[in-house]
Protein backbone atom coordinates (compact mmCIF):
# COMPACT_ATOMS: atom_id res chain seq x y z
CA UNK A 1 0.00 0.00 0.00
CA UNK A 2 1.60 3.22 -1.16
CA UNK A 3 -0.28 5.88 0.77
CA UNK A 4 -3.28 5.98 3.06
CA UNK A 5 -5.92 8.62 3.16
CA UNK A 6 -7.15 10.03 6.46
CA UNK A 7 -10.33 8.04 6.02
CA UNK A 8 -8.47 4.79 5.68
CA UNK A 9 -6.31 5.50 8.73
CA UNK A 10 -9.46 6.25 10.71
CA UNK A 11 -11.05 3.00 9.59
CA UNK A 12 -7.97 1.00 10.58
CA UNK A 13 -7.88 2.68 13.97
CA UNK A 14 -11.56 1.93 14.52
CA UNK A 15 -11.03 -1.71 13.57
CA UNK A 16 -8.08 -1.96 15.94
CA UNK A 17 -10.01 -0.42 18.84
CA UNK A 18 -12.91 -2.82 18.27
CA UNK A 19 -10.71 -5.90 18.17
CA UNK A 20 -8.34 -5.09 21.01
CA UNK A 21 -10.82 -3.88 23.63
CA UNK A 22 -8.21 -3.07 26.24
CA UNK A 23 -5.60 -5.73 25.36
CA UNK A 24 -3.40 -3.27 23.52
CA UNK A 25 0.23 -4.35 23.58
CA UNK A 26 2.62 -3.19 20.82
CA UNK A 27 2.62 -6.70 19.30
CA UNK A 28 -1.16 -6.95 19.35
CA UNK A 29 -1.59 -3.52 17.75
CA UNK A 30 0.83 -4.40 14.99
CA UNK A 31 -1.00 -7.64 14.28
CA UNK A 32 -4.39 -5.97 14.09
CA UNK A 33 -3.19 -3.10 11.91
CA UNK A 34 -1.52 -5.55 9.54
CA UNK A 35 -4.68 -7.58 9.16
CA UNK A 36 -6.71 -4.38 8.68
CA UNK A 37 -4.32 -3.27 5.96
CA UNK A 38 -4.66 -6.61 4.23
CA UNK A 39 -8.41 -6.35 4.41
CA UNK A 40 -8.33 -2.87 2.89
CA UNK A 41 -6.05 -4.04 0.11
CA UNK A 42 -8.05 -7.14 -0.64
CA UNK A 43 -11.49 -5.58 -0.27
CA UNK A 44 -13.70 -4.15 -3.00
CA UNK A 45 -11.61 -2.48 -5.67
CA UNK A 46 -10.92 1.00 -4.44
CA UNK A 47 -9.87 3.98 -6.44
CA UNK A 48 -6.15 3.90 -6.36
CA UNK A 49 -4.52 7.23 -5.96
CA UNK A 50 -3.84 8.20 -9.53
CA UNK A 51 -0.36 7.73 -10.79
CA UNK A 52 1.23 11.14 -11.18
CA UNK A 53 1.44 12.29 -14.74
CA UNK A 54 5.12 12.18 -15.67
CA UNK A 55 6.39 15.74 -16.05
CA UNK A 56 8.35 15.44 -19.27
CA UNK A 57 7.86 12.29 -21.26
CA UNK A 58 9.60 11.11 -24.33
CA UNK A 59 7.09 10.98 -27.12
CA UNK A 60 8.30 7.44 -27.59
CA UNK A 61 9.87 7.88 -30.97
CA UNK A 62 8.64 9.69 -34.00
CA UNK A 63 7.43 13.24 -34.21
CA UNK A 64 6.02 15.06 -37.21
CA UNK A 65 6.92 18.71 -37.57
CA UNK A 66 4.94 20.74 -40.07
CA UNK A 67 5.75 24.34 -40.90
CA UNK A 68 4.05 26.90 -43.14
CA UNK A 69 4.74 30.49 -44.03
CA UNK A 70 6.27 32.91 -46.49
CA UNK A 71 9.42 31.59 -48.13
CA UNK A 72 12.77 33.02 -47.12
CA UNK A 73 16.39 31.96 -47.39
CA UNK A 74 17.69 29.63 -44.71
CA UNK A 75 14.43 28.17 -43.41
CA UNK A 76 15.44 24.58 -44.03
CA UNK A 77 18.93 25.11 -42.60
CA UNK A 78 17.47 26.83 -39.54
CA UNK A 79 14.95 24.11 -38.79
CA UNK A 80 17.30 21.21 -39.40
CA UNK A 81 20.17 22.67 -37.39
CA UNK A 82 17.79 23.20 -34.48
CA UNK A 83 16.76 19.56 -34.81
CA UNK A 84 20.40 18.54 -34.78
CA UNK A 85 20.93 20.60 -31.63
CA UNK A 86 17.97 18.76 -30.08
CA UNK A 87 19.56 15.46 -31.16
CA UNK A 88 16.58 14.50 -33.29
CA UNK A 89 17.25 12.26 -36.26
CA UNK A 90 15.52 13.25 -39.51
CA UNK A 91 13.82 10.19 -41.02
CA UNK A 92 11.90 11.80 -43.84
CA UNK A 93 11.44 15.27 -45.18
CA UNK A 94 9.09 16.70 -47.76
CA UNK A 95 9.07 20.30 -48.84
CA UNK A 96 6.95 22.31 -51.29
CA UNK A 97 7.03 25.91 -52.33
CA UNK A 98 3.80 27.08 -53.91
CA UNK A 99 4.15 30.63 -55.25
CA UNK A 100 5.70 32.39 -52.26
CA UNK A 101 4.29 29.94 -49.75
CA UNK A 102 6.57 27.49 -48.02
CA UNK A 103 5.36 24.15 -46.63
CA UNK A 104 7.53 21.53 -45.03
CA UNK A 105 6.94 18.27 -43.26
CA UNK A 106 9.77 16.68 -41.30
CA UNK A 107 9.47 13.24 -39.72
CA UNK A 108 12.01 12.88 -36.94
CA UNK A 109 13.05 10.14 -34.59
CA UNK A 110 13.52 11.56 -31.10
CA UNK A 111 14.60 8.27 -29.53
CA UNK A 112 18.20 9.39 -29.11
CA UNK A 113 17.27 12.83 -27.84
CA UNK A 114 17.61 13.55 -24.14
CA UNK A 115 15.09 16.40 -24.47
CA UNK A 116 11.46 15.82 -23.52
CA UNK A 117 8.73 16.29 -26.13
CA UNK A 118 7.64 19.60 -24.58
CA UNK A 119 11.12 21.11 -25.02
CA UNK A 120 11.42 19.93 -28.61
CA UNK A 121 8.03 21.39 -29.38
CA UNK A 122 8.74 24.71 -27.74
CA UNK A 123 12.15 25.17 -29.35
CA UNK A 124 10.90 24.25 -32.82
CA UNK A 125 7.97 26.66 -32.51
CA UNK A 126 10.34 29.43 -31.39
CA UNK A 127 12.72 28.66 -34.23
CA UNK A 128 9.81 28.85 -36.67
CA UNK A 129 8.76 32.20 -35.27
CA UNK A 130 12.19 33.64 -36.06
CA UNK A 131 11.44 32.86 -39.75
CA UNK A 132 7.79 33.98 -39.47
CA UNK A 133 6.66 30.36 -39.85
CA UNK A 134 3.83 28.60 -38.10
CA UNK A 135 5.28 25.37 -36.77
CA UNK A 136 3.10 22.49 -35.57
CA UNK A 137 4.74 19.65 -33.66
CA UNK A 138 2.74 16.46 -33.18
CA UNK A 139 3.42 12.90 -32.24
CA UNK A 140 3.22 10.63 -35.27
CA UNK A 141 0.58 8.36 -33.72
CA UNK A 142 -2.25 10.83 -34.27
CA UNK A 143 -1.75 10.64 -38.05
CA UNK A 144 -1.47 6.87 -38.05
CA UNK A 145 -4.67 6.67 -36.02
CA UNK A 146 -6.66 8.96 -38.27
CA UNK A 147 -5.49 7.84 -41.68
CA UNK A 148 -4.86 4.10 -41.35
CA UNK A 149 -7.40 1.37 -40.66
Amino acid at each position, binding site marked *: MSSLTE*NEIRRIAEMAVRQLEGHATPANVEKVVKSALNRLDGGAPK*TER*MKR*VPGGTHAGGRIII*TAFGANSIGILAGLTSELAALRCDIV*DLSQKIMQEFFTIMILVDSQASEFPFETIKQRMVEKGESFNLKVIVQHEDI*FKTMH*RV
Partner: protein
Amino acid sequence: MHIELPEILETIRMTEVEHFDIRTVTMGINLKDCISDSLPRLKENIYEKLMRTASEHVATAEKVEAQYGISIANKRISVTPIALVGDGYYAEDFVEIACVLDKAADNLGVDYLGGFSALVQKGFSKGDLGLIRAIPEALTQTKHVCSSVNVATTKAGINMDAVYLMGQIIKETAERSADDDGIGCAKLVVFANAPEDNPFIAGAFHGVSEPDVVINVGISGPGVILRAVRESYQTDFPTLADNIRRMAFKITRAGEFVGKTVARLQNIPYGIVDISLAPTPMPGDSIADILKAMGLEDVGAPGTTAALALLNDAVKRGGLMASSHVGGMSGAFIPVSEDQGMIDAARTGHITLEKMEAMTSVCSVGIDMVAVPGDTSVEAISGLIADECAIGVANSKTTAVRVIPVPGKTIGEEADYGGLLGVAPIMPLSTLNNAHFIHRGGRIPAPVKGINN
Protein backbone atom coordinates in the same frame (compact mmCIF):
# COMPACT_ATOMS: atom_id res chain seq x y z
CA MET B 1 4.09 2.83 -42.41
CA HIS B 2 4.52 6.03 -44.28
CA ILE B 3 2.35 9.07 -43.68
CA GLU B 4 1.79 11.15 -46.81
CA LEU B 5 2.09 14.92 -46.83
CA PRO B 6 -1.56 15.40 -47.95
CA GLU B 7 -2.69 13.34 -44.96
CA ILE B 8 -0.71 15.50 -42.59
CA LEU B 9 -2.02 18.66 -44.21
CA GLU B 10 -5.58 17.36 -43.99
CA THR B 11 -5.24 16.72 -40.27
CA ILE B 12 -3.79 20.16 -39.70
CA ARG B 13 -6.52 21.74 -41.79
CA MET B 14 -9.12 19.92 -39.70
CA THR B 15 -7.75 21.23 -36.42
CA GLU B 16 -6.57 24.68 -37.49
CA VAL B 17 -9.28 25.75 -39.95
CA GLU B 18 -12.31 23.53 -39.46
CA HIS B 19 -12.49 23.67 -35.63
CA PHE B 20 -12.11 19.93 -35.23
CA ASP B 21 -11.49 19.27 -31.58
CA ILE B 22 -12.30 16.79 -28.90
CA ARG B 23 -15.35 18.39 -27.33
CA THR B 24 -14.94 16.74 -23.99
CA VAL B 25 -12.93 14.21 -22.07
CA THR B 26 -15.18 13.30 -19.17
CA MET B 27 -14.06 11.34 -16.15
CA GLY B 28 -16.91 9.29 -14.71
CA ILE B 29 -16.54 8.73 -10.97
CA ASN B 30 -18.56 6.35 -8.82
CA LEU B 31 -19.70 7.99 -5.57
CA LYS B 32 -21.67 5.05 -4.16
CA ASP B 33 -18.85 4.33 -1.73
CA CYS B 34 -19.29 7.82 -0.24
CA ILE B 35 -22.77 7.11 1.16
CA SER B 36 -23.11 7.91 4.86
CA ASP B 37 -25.94 8.52 7.33
CA SER B 38 -24.18 11.66 8.48
CA LEU B 39 -24.49 14.61 6.10
CA PRO B 40 -21.12 16.18 7.04
CA ARG B 41 -19.46 12.78 6.55
CA LEU B 42 -21.21 12.27 3.20
CA LYS B 43 -20.05 15.67 1.98
CA GLU B 44 -16.54 15.03 3.20
CA ASN B 45 -16.43 11.61 1.51
CA ILE B 46 -17.62 13.06 -1.81
CA TYR B 47 -15.14 15.92 -1.73
CA GLU B 48 -12.27 13.67 -0.74
CA LYS B 49 -13.00 11.07 -3.43
CA LEU B 50 -13.36 13.64 -6.21
CA MET B 51 -10.15 15.41 -5.24
CA ARG B 52 -8.26 12.15 -4.93
CA THR B 53 -9.52 10.58 -8.15
CA ALA B 54 -9.53 13.51 -10.54
CA SER B 55 -6.49 15.40 -9.29
CA GLU B 56 -4.55 14.79 -12.51
CA HIS B 57 -7.43 14.86 -14.98
CA VAL B 58 -7.03 18.39 -16.34
CA ALA B 59 -3.23 18.25 -16.37
CA THR B 60 -3.25 14.95 -18.25
CA ALA B 61 -5.73 16.17 -20.85
CA GLU B 62 -3.65 19.30 -21.43
CA LYS B 63 -0.55 17.20 -21.86
CA VAL B 64 -2.24 15.01 -24.48
CA GLU B 65 -3.49 18.11 -26.28
CA ALA B 66 0.05 19.40 -26.54
CA GLN B 67 1.54 16.12 -27.64
CA TYR B 68 -0.88 15.37 -30.46
CA GLY B 69 -1.90 18.87 -31.46
CA ILE B 70 -5.62 18.18 -31.07
CA SER B 71 -7.39 20.54 -28.75
CA ILE B 72 -9.63 19.19 -25.99
CA ALA B 73 -12.25 21.88 -25.52
CA ASN B 74 -13.62 20.72 -22.16
CA LYS B 75 -12.43 18.61 -19.27
CA ARG B 76 -15.38 17.39 -17.28
CA ILE B 77 -16.48 15.05 -14.53
CA SER B 78 -19.62 12.97 -14.23
CA VAL B 79 -20.68 11.33 -10.99
CA THR B 80 -23.17 8.70 -9.81
CA PRO B 81 -26.68 10.21 -9.79
CA ILE B 82 -26.67 12.20 -6.58
CA ALA B 83 -30.23 11.10 -5.74
CA LEU B 84 -28.78 7.61 -5.14
CA VAL B 85 -25.78 8.82 -3.17
CA GLY B 86 -27.93 11.08 -0.98
CA ASP B 87 -31.10 9.03 -0.81
CA GLY B 88 -32.92 9.70 2.44
CA TYR B 89 -31.82 13.32 2.63
CA TYR B 90 -34.00 16.40 2.19
CA ALA B 91 -33.97 19.09 -0.49
CA GLU B 92 -31.91 21.54 1.59
CA ASP B 93 -29.32 18.80 2.19
CA PHE B 94 -29.06 18.19 -1.55
CA VAL B 95 -28.32 21.88 -2.07
CA GLU B 96 -25.39 21.50 0.33
CA ILE B 97 -24.19 18.43 -1.59
CA ALA B 98 -24.38 20.40 -4.85
CA CYS B 99 -22.20 23.09 -3.29
CA VAL B 100 -19.60 20.46 -2.34
CA LEU B 101 -19.60 19.15 -5.92
CA ASP B 102 -19.15 22.70 -7.17
CA LYS B 103 -16.26 23.36 -4.81
CA ALA B 104 -14.51 20.17 -5.97
CA ALA B 105 -15.08 21.03 -9.65
CA ASP B 106 -13.69 24.50 -9.04
CA ASN B 107 -10.58 23.23 -7.29
CA LEU B 108 -9.97 20.53 -9.90
CA GLY B 109 -10.24 23.10 -12.70
CA VAL B 110 -12.90 21.21 -14.69
CA ASP B 111 -15.47 23.09 -16.75
CA TYR B 112 -18.57 21.24 -15.64
CA LEU B 113 -19.58 18.42 -13.35
CA GLY B 114 -22.64 16.39 -14.33
CA GLY B 115 -24.63 14.00 -12.20
CA PHE B 116 -26.85 16.10 -9.97
CA SER B 117 -29.37 13.65 -11.30
CA ALA B 118 -32.27 11.35 -10.52
CA LEU B 119 -33.70 8.39 -12.44
CA VAL B 120 -37.45 8.45 -11.85
CA GLN B 121 -38.97 6.80 -14.92
CA LYS B 122 -41.02 4.47 -12.74
CA GLY B 123 -41.43 6.44 -9.54
CA PHE B 124 -39.78 8.59 -6.89
CA SER B 125 -37.78 7.58 -3.86
CA LYS B 126 -37.46 10.09 -1.04
CA GLY B 127 -34.00 11.01 -2.31
CA ASP B 128 -35.29 11.50 -5.86
CA LEU B 129 -37.90 13.97 -4.67
CA GLY B 130 -35.41 15.73 -2.43
CA LEU B 131 -32.95 16.14 -5.27
CA ILE B 132 -35.52 17.32 -7.80
CA ARG B 133 -36.90 19.92 -5.38
CA ALA B 134 -33.35 21.09 -4.72
CA ILE B 135 -32.56 21.67 -8.41
CA PRO B 136 -33.62 25.36 -8.72
CA GLU B 137 -31.65 26.40 -5.64
CA ALA B 138 -28.69 24.12 -6.39
CA LEU B 139 -28.31 25.46 -9.93
CA THR B 140 -28.54 29.03 -8.64
CA GLN B 141 -25.88 28.54 -5.98
CA THR B 142 -23.39 26.60 -8.11
CA LYS B 143 -21.38 27.40 -11.23
CA HIS B 144 -20.20 24.06 -12.57
CA VAL B 145 -22.87 21.60 -11.48
CA CYS B 146 -25.28 20.24 -14.11
CA SER B 147 -28.49 18.40 -13.45
CA SER B 148 -30.52 15.82 -15.34
CA VAL B 149 -33.65 13.85 -14.58
CA ASN B 150 -34.67 10.75 -16.49
CA VAL B 151 -38.47 10.59 -16.58
CA ALA B 152 -39.15 7.86 -19.15
CA THR B 153 -37.75 4.69 -20.66
CA THR B 154 -38.98 2.27 -23.30
CA LYS B 155 -39.14 -0.40 -20.59
CA ALA B 156 -40.96 1.66 -17.95
CA GLY B 157 -43.10 4.10 -19.93
CA ILE B 158 -43.40 7.79 -19.09
CA ASN B 159 -43.70 8.95 -15.49
CA MET B 160 -46.17 11.79 -16.07
CA ASP B 161 -46.00 12.90 -12.42
CA ALA B 162 -42.30 13.51 -13.01
CA VAL B 163 -43.00 15.22 -16.34
CA TYR B 164 -45.40 17.64 -14.60
CA LEU B 165 -42.99 18.18 -11.71
CA MET B 166 -40.12 18.93 -14.12
CA GLY B 167 -42.28 21.52 -15.87
CA GLN B 168 -42.57 23.29 -12.51
CA ILE B 169 -38.88 22.87 -11.71
CA ILE B 170 -37.84 24.33 -15.08
CA LYS B 171 -40.07 27.37 -14.54
CA GLU B 172 -38.75 27.85 -11.04
CA THR B 173 -35.12 27.45 -12.14
CA ALA B 174 -35.63 30.08 -14.86
CA GLU B 175 -37.19 32.50 -12.38
CA ARG B 176 -34.31 32.05 -9.91
CA SER B 177 -31.88 33.17 -12.61
CA ALA B 178 -34.19 35.80 -14.13
CA ASP B 179 -31.42 38.42 -14.17
CA ASP B 180 -29.38 36.21 -16.51
CA ASP B 181 -32.25 35.27 -18.84
CA GLY B 182 -32.92 32.02 -16.98
CA ILE B 183 -29.43 30.59 -17.58
CA GLY B 184 -29.97 28.04 -14.78
CA CYS B 185 -32.10 26.06 -17.24
CA ALA B 186 -29.09 25.64 -19.55
CA LYS B 187 -27.68 23.32 -16.88
CA LEU B 188 -30.84 21.21 -16.56
CA VAL B 189 -32.04 18.50 -18.92
CA VAL B 190 -35.01 16.15 -18.82
CA PHE B 191 -34.41 12.77 -20.45
CA ALA B 192 -36.12 9.74 -21.88
CA ASN B 193 -33.84 6.69 -22.16
CA ALA B 194 -30.85 8.54 -20.70
CA PRO B 195 -27.53 6.85 -21.54
CA GLU B 196 -25.35 6.02 -18.54
CA ASP B 197 -22.03 6.79 -20.20
CA ASN B 198 -22.81 10.12 -21.83
CA PRO B 199 -19.80 12.44 -21.66
CA PHE B 200 -21.74 15.53 -22.76
CA ILE B 201 -23.11 18.18 -20.46
CA ALA B 202 -25.74 18.90 -19.18
CA GLY B 203 -26.88 15.28 -19.29
CA ALA B 204 -23.72 13.49 -18.16
CA PHE B 205 -23.89 11.16 -15.19
CA HIS B 206 -21.95 8.08 -14.15
CA GLY B 207 -24.35 5.14 -14.42
CA VAL B 208 -24.74 2.61 -11.64
CA SER B 209 -23.32 -0.23 -13.73
CA GLU B 210 -20.18 1.67 -14.70
CA PRO B 211 -16.75 0.87 -13.22
CA ASP B 212 -15.39 2.87 -10.30
CA VAL B 213 -13.69 5.39 -12.59
CA VAL B 214 -13.79 5.63 -16.37
CA ILE B 215 -12.85 8.04 -19.16
CA ASN B 216 -15.48 8.79 -21.82
CA VAL B 217 -14.88 11.03 -24.81
CA GLY B 218 -17.12 13.22 -26.92
CA ILE B 219 -15.93 14.38 -30.31
CA SER B 220 -16.90 17.46 -32.21
CA GLY B 221 -16.43 18.22 -35.83
CA PRO B 222 -19.34 19.68 -37.79
CA GLY B 223 -16.79 21.84 -39.65
CA VAL B 224 -14.97 18.78 -40.96
CA ILE B 225 -18.19 17.04 -42.02
CA LEU B 226 -19.33 20.30 -43.63
CA ARG B 227 -16.27 20.19 -45.90
CA ALA B 228 -17.03 16.58 -46.85
CA VAL B 229 -20.59 17.59 -47.75
CA ARG B 230 -19.51 20.69 -49.69
CA GLU B 231 -17.00 18.63 -51.67
CA SER B 232 -19.86 16.24 -52.51
CA TYR B 233 -22.04 18.99 -53.98
CA GLN B 234 -22.52 17.32 -57.36
CA THR B 235 -22.86 13.74 -56.11
CA ASP B 236 -25.84 11.48 -55.52
CA PHE B 237 -26.94 10.29 -52.05
CA PRO B 238 -24.85 7.12 -51.78
CA THR B 239 -21.66 9.06 -52.55
CA LEU B 240 -22.65 11.85 -50.19
CA ALA B 241 -23.24 9.33 -47.39
CA ASP B 242 -19.97 7.61 -48.22
CA ASN B 243 -17.95 10.82 -48.00
CA ILE B 244 -19.51 11.72 -44.64
CA ARG B 245 -18.80 8.21 -43.39
CA ARG B 246 -15.12 8.41 -44.31
CA MET B 247 -14.71 11.72 -42.52
CA ALA B 248 -16.58 10.49 -39.45
CA PHE B 249 -14.16 7.56 -39.32
CA LYS B 250 -11.18 9.90 -39.06
CA ILE B 251 -12.57 12.12 -36.35
CA THR B 252 -13.80 9.17 -34.31
CA ARG B 253 -10.39 7.56 -34.51
CA ALA B 254 -8.80 10.75 -33.26
CA GLY B 255 -11.34 10.96 -30.43
CA GLU B 256 -10.84 7.38 -29.37
CA PHE B 257 -7.08 7.75 -29.49
CA VAL B 258 -7.12 10.88 -27.33
CA GLY B 259 -9.51 9.25 -24.83
CA LYS B 260 -7.45 6.09 -24.58
CA THR B 261 -4.28 8.09 -24.09
CA VAL B 262 -5.77 10.27 -21.34
CA ALA B 263 -7.07 7.10 -19.64
CA ARG B 264 -3.77 5.25 -19.97
CA LEU B 265 -1.73 8.11 -18.54
CA GLN B 266 -3.98 8.20 -15.48
CA ASN B 267 -4.04 4.43 -15.15
CA ILE B 268 -7.83 4.15 -15.38
CA PRO B 269 -10.11 2.31 -17.81
CA TYR B 270 -11.26 3.88 -21.05
CA GLY B 271 -15.00 3.67 -21.64
CA ILE B 272 -16.56 4.90 -24.85
CA VAL B 273 -16.38 7.52 -27.54
CA ASP B 274 -19.59 9.43 -28.15
CA ILE B 275 -19.74 10.17 -31.86
CA SER B 276 -22.30 12.95 -31.65
CA LEU B 277 -21.49 15.91 -33.84
CA ALA B 278 -21.54 18.80 -31.38
CA PRO B 279 -21.74 22.28 -32.89
CA THR B 280 -20.50 25.57 -31.45
CA PRO B 281 -21.64 29.10 -32.29
CA MET B 282 -18.36 29.57 -34.24
CA PRO B 283 -18.90 30.20 -37.96
CA GLY B 284 -18.57 26.95 -39.92
CA ASP B 285 -19.07 24.73 -36.87
CA SER B 286 -22.79 24.23 -37.43
CA ILE B 287 -25.03 21.22 -38.03
CA ALA B 288 -27.55 23.48 -39.75
CA ASP B 289 -24.87 24.49 -42.27
CA ILE B 290 -24.27 20.81 -43.11
CA LEU B 291 -27.98 20.31 -43.82
CA LYS B 292 -28.00 23.44 -45.97
CA ALA B 293 -24.90 22.27 -47.84
CA MET B 294 -26.84 19.14 -48.78
CA GLY B 295 -29.12 21.34 -50.86
CA LEU B 296 -31.68 22.94 -48.55
CA GLU B 297 -32.29 26.69 -48.62
CA ASP B 298 -32.41 26.64 -44.83
CA VAL B 299 -33.15 24.22 -42.02
CA GLY B 300 -36.90 23.82 -41.79
CA ALA B 301 -37.31 23.29 -45.53
CA PRO B 302 -39.20 20.11 -46.48
CA GLY B 303 -36.54 17.41 -46.56
CA THR B 304 -34.74 18.66 -43.45
CA THR B 305 -35.62 15.56 -41.42
CA ALA B 306 -34.44 13.25 -44.21
CA ALA B 307 -31.19 15.19 -44.54
CA LEU B 308 -30.58 14.91 -40.80
CA ALA B 309 -31.36 11.19 -40.84
CA LEU B 310 -28.85 10.67 -43.65
CA LEU B 311 -26.21 12.68 -41.81
CA ASN B 312 -26.74 10.87 -38.53
CA ASP B 313 -26.62 7.43 -40.08
CA ALA B 314 -23.52 8.15 -42.15
CA VAL B 315 -21.70 9.47 -39.07
CA LYS B 316 -22.65 6.32 -37.16
CA ARG B 317 -21.35 4.06 -39.93
CA GLY B 318 -17.96 5.76 -39.92
CA GLY B 319 -17.84 5.96 -36.14
CA LEU B 320 -18.73 2.32 -35.58
CA MET B 321 -16.00 1.21 -37.95
CA ALA B 322 -13.51 3.44 -36.15
CA SER B 323 -14.16 2.36 -32.58
CA SER B 324 -15.29 -0.82 -30.85
CA HIS B 325 -16.81 1.12 -27.99
CA VAL B 326 -19.20 3.72 -29.28
CA GLY B 327 -21.68 4.90 -26.66
CA GLY B 328 -23.34 7.85 -24.99
CA MET B 329 -25.72 9.78 -27.22
CA SER B 330 -24.00 9.18 -30.54
CA GLY B 331 -26.21 11.19 -32.84
CA ALA B 332 -26.23 14.76 -34.10
CA PHE B 333 -26.92 17.56 -31.62
CA ILE B 334 -29.04 20.46 -32.80
CA PRO B 335 -28.98 22.87 -29.86
CA VAL B 336 -30.53 26.08 -31.16
CA SER B 337 -28.48 28.64 -29.25
CA GLU B 338 -25.19 26.80 -29.77
CA ASP B 339 -25.38 26.49 -33.56
CA GLN B 340 -25.12 29.63 -35.68
CA GLY B 341 -27.17 28.13 -38.51
CA MET B 342 -29.95 27.15 -36.11
CA ILE B 343 -29.86 30.61 -34.49
CA ASP B 344 -30.32 32.24 -37.90
CA ALA B 345 -33.12 29.84 -38.86
CA ALA B 346 -34.92 30.49 -35.56
CA ARG B 347 -34.58 34.27 -36.05
CA THR B 348 -36.18 34.15 -39.49
CA GLY B 349 -38.81 31.68 -38.35
CA HIS B 350 -37.59 29.06 -40.84
CA ILE B 351 -37.32 26.49 -38.10
CA THR B 352 -40.21 25.92 -35.71
CA LEU B 353 -40.47 23.83 -32.57
CA GLU B 354 -42.78 21.43 -34.40
CA LYS B 355 -40.21 20.81 -37.15
CA MET B 356 -37.50 20.40 -34.53
CA GLU B 357 -39.65 17.81 -32.81
CA ALA B 358 -39.78 15.83 -36.05
CA MET B 359 -36.01 16.16 -36.43
CA THR B 360 -35.46 14.73 -32.96
CA SER B 361 -37.00 11.45 -34.08
CA VAL B 362 -33.94 10.81 -36.27
CA CYS B 363 -31.12 12.30 -34.22
CA SER B 364 -30.04 12.44 -30.62
CA VAL B 365 -31.00 14.70 -27.77
CA GLY B 366 -34.09 16.62 -28.78
CA ILE B 367 -35.41 20.06 -27.99
CA ASP B 368 -32.08 21.44 -26.88
CA MET B 369 -31.22 24.96 -25.76
CA VAL B 370 -34.51 26.35 -26.96
CA ALA B 371 -35.78 29.59 -25.44
CA VAL B 372 -39.55 30.04 -25.13
CA PRO B 373 -41.52 33.03 -23.80
CA GLY B 374 -41.24 33.62 -20.05
CA ASP B 375 -44.99 33.41 -19.60
CA THR B 376 -45.18 29.87 -21.04
CA SER B 377 -47.29 27.76 -18.68
CA VAL B 378 -45.91 24.87 -16.66
CA GLU B 379 -48.35 22.60 -18.50
CA ALA B 380 -47.06 23.69 -21.92
CA ILE B 381 -43.47 22.90 -20.91
CA SER B 382 -44.59 19.57 -19.45
CA GLY B 383 -46.46 18.84 -22.69
CA LEU B 384 -43.30 19.52 -24.69
CA ILE B 385 -41.38 17.14 -22.41
CA ALA B 386 -44.10 14.49 -22.75
CA ASP B 387 -44.00 14.73 -26.56
CA GLU B 388 -40.23 14.30 -26.65
CA CYS B 389 -40.46 11.39 -24.21
CA ALA B 390 -43.07 9.75 -26.43
CA ILE B 391 -40.70 9.96 -29.42
CA GLY B 392 -37.87 8.50 -27.36
CA VAL B 393 -39.91 5.75 -25.73
CA ALA B 394 -41.69 4.66 -28.91
CA ASN B 395 -38.44 4.57 -30.92
CA SER B 396 -36.19 3.10 -28.19
CA LYS B 397 -33.88 6.07 -28.39
CA THR B 398 -32.65 8.89 -26.21
CA THR B 399 -34.54 12.16 -26.34
CA ALA B 400 -34.29 15.14 -24.07
CA VAL B 401 -35.60 18.61 -23.38
CA ARG B 402 -33.42 21.52 -22.35
CA VAL B 403 -35.78 24.45 -22.62
CA ILE B 404 -35.52 27.93 -21.14
CA PRO B 405 -38.68 29.96 -20.43
CA VAL B 406 -36.83 33.30 -20.46
CA PRO B 407 -38.34 35.46 -17.70
CA GLY B 408 -39.85 38.71 -18.95
CA LYS B 409 -39.07 38.06 -22.60
CA THR B 410 -41.28 37.07 -25.50
CA ILE B 411 -41.31 36.30 -29.25
CA GLY B 412 -39.01 38.61 -31.20
CA GLU B 413 -36.54 38.95 -28.33
CA GLU B 414 -33.36 36.99 -27.69
CA ALA B 415 -31.43 35.68 -24.72
CA ASP B 416 -27.65 36.03 -24.99
CA TYR B 417 -25.76 33.57 -22.79
CA GLY B 418 -22.30 34.17 -24.20
CA GLY B 419 -19.53 31.70 -24.97
CA LEU B 420 -20.41 28.19 -26.06
CA LEU B 421 -24.02 28.61 -24.90
CA GLY B 422 -24.60 31.25 -27.59
CA VAL B 423 -27.71 33.28 -28.38
CA ALA B 424 -31.24 31.91 -28.14
CA PRO B 425 -34.01 33.63 -30.11
CA ILE B 426 -37.32 33.15 -28.27
CA MET B 427 -39.36 30.59 -30.22
CA PRO B 428 -43.16 30.31 -30.14
CA LEU B 429 -44.67 27.30 -28.36
CA SER B 430 -48.36 26.51 -28.83
CA THR B 431 -50.54 28.06 -26.12
CA LEU B 432 -53.48 25.66 -26.61
CA ASN B 433 -54.73 24.33 -23.30
CA ASN B 434 -53.42 20.88 -22.31
CA ALA B 435 -53.86 21.18 -18.55
CA HIS B 436 -56.37 18.35 -18.16
CA PHE B 437 -54.05 15.93 -19.96
CA ILE B 438 -50.97 16.89 -17.96
CA HIS B 439 -52.79 16.82 -14.59
CA ARG B 440 -54.06 13.24 -14.96
CA GLY B 441 -51.10 11.83 -13.08
CA GLY B 442 -49.58 8.36 -13.07
CA ARG B 443 -47.50 6.65 -15.67
CA ILE B 444 -48.12 6.28 -19.40
CA PRO B 445 -47.65 2.50 -19.88
CA ALA B 446 -44.56 1.17 -21.60
CA PRO B 447 -45.08 0.57 -25.32
CA VAL B 448 -45.52 -2.94 -26.61
CA LYS B 449 -42.08 -2.78 -28.22
CA GLY B 450 -40.58 -2.33 -24.74
CA ILE B 451 -41.66 -5.88 -23.91
CA ASN B 452 -39.24 -7.63 -26.20
CA ASN B 453 -38.19 -10.75 -24.33
